[in-house]
């Protein structure tokens, strides 16, 4: 039973950690920008997945206009990106050039007849049920739909660093447990075994010989 609880807890924890990384780390899509637009957003319970108003503007108002970039991805499906400042808060992209990026995106539009492909760096998820969109970080032109996305050095570095930290903590915890907790538990178990055998012996004296 305890093992089951431990597994459930462990899997839930690591799935959450994985989700946070998958949401936060940058990814690259090869896309054709089809249009750009802005739309007023009345952000509600999906507020977690939206950034804040542009840096320097009043962030306390209930709703605001958000830039969007509509694209068709090289693999065929469509993807809509929001384009918001992350500013000084999480995730730490320190993006302040939302309007500039929107100008670039508007300039990058192309039709299916004369396609021009771009690599969009972004983070976040598209989910239709919560109306959330990945946030575009930057845009650069690429040769075609099969262009390479590049090796994600930053992601490799961050994940390796995280792995090293987790491994370091785990090793120390295991050493601590072997040195301190396990002997104590064993002592308790031995003690218990001794006591219970004493009880059995005492019961034995009442049995018929």
């Amino acid at each position, binding site marked *: 039973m305890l093992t089951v609880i431990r597994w459930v807890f462990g899997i839930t924890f690591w799935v959450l950690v994985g989700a946070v990384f998958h949401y936060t780390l940058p990814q690259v899509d090869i896309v054709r920008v089809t249009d750009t637009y802005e739309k007023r957003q009345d952000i509600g319970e999906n507020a977690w997945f939206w950034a*804040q108003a542009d840096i320097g503007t009043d962030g306390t108002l209930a709703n605001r206009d958000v830039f969007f970039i509509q694209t068709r991805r090289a693999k065929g499906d469509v993807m809509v990106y929001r384009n918001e400042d992350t*500013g*000084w*808060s999480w995730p*730490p*992209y320190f*993006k*302040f*050039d939302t309007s*500039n990026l929107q100008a670039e995106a508007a300039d990058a539009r192309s039709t299916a007849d004369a396609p021009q492909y771009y690599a969009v760096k972004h983070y976040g998820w598209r989910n239709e049920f919560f109306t959330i969109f990945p946030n575009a970080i930057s845009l650069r032109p690429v040769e075609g739909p099969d262009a390479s996305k590049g090796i994600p050095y930053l992601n490799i570095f961050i994940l390796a660093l995280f792995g090293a930290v987790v491994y370091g903590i785990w090793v120390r915890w295991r050493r601590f447990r072997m040195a301190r907790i396990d002997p104590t538990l064993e002592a308790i178990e031995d003690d218990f075994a001794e006591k219970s055998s004493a009880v059995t012996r005492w019961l034995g004296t009442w049995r018929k010989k």
Partner: protein
Amino acid sequence: MIGFIRLVVMGFVALTVVYVCLSFYSRAVRRSKLRKKWYDGKQLVDRDTFVQRGLERYDGSIRRKLILGVYVVPMVVVAVIIYLTNFA
């Protein structure tokens, strides 16, 4: 602006915790190294004086000031990210 102030304050607090821990740790490591050196050496002065002198030299050393990198490195990283995200 509030966001910036919040980042600076929280970052400062977090990094100060790291800085304090690291400087205590580094000093403790230096102390144990000095003790070891005293045992291995000729033992011309008593141990406490030897360690004390060594630590005073450590307090003025560049090695100790390097721990200030705890503040400097994240600031440089943030500046580089800001440049790469917005101006590159």
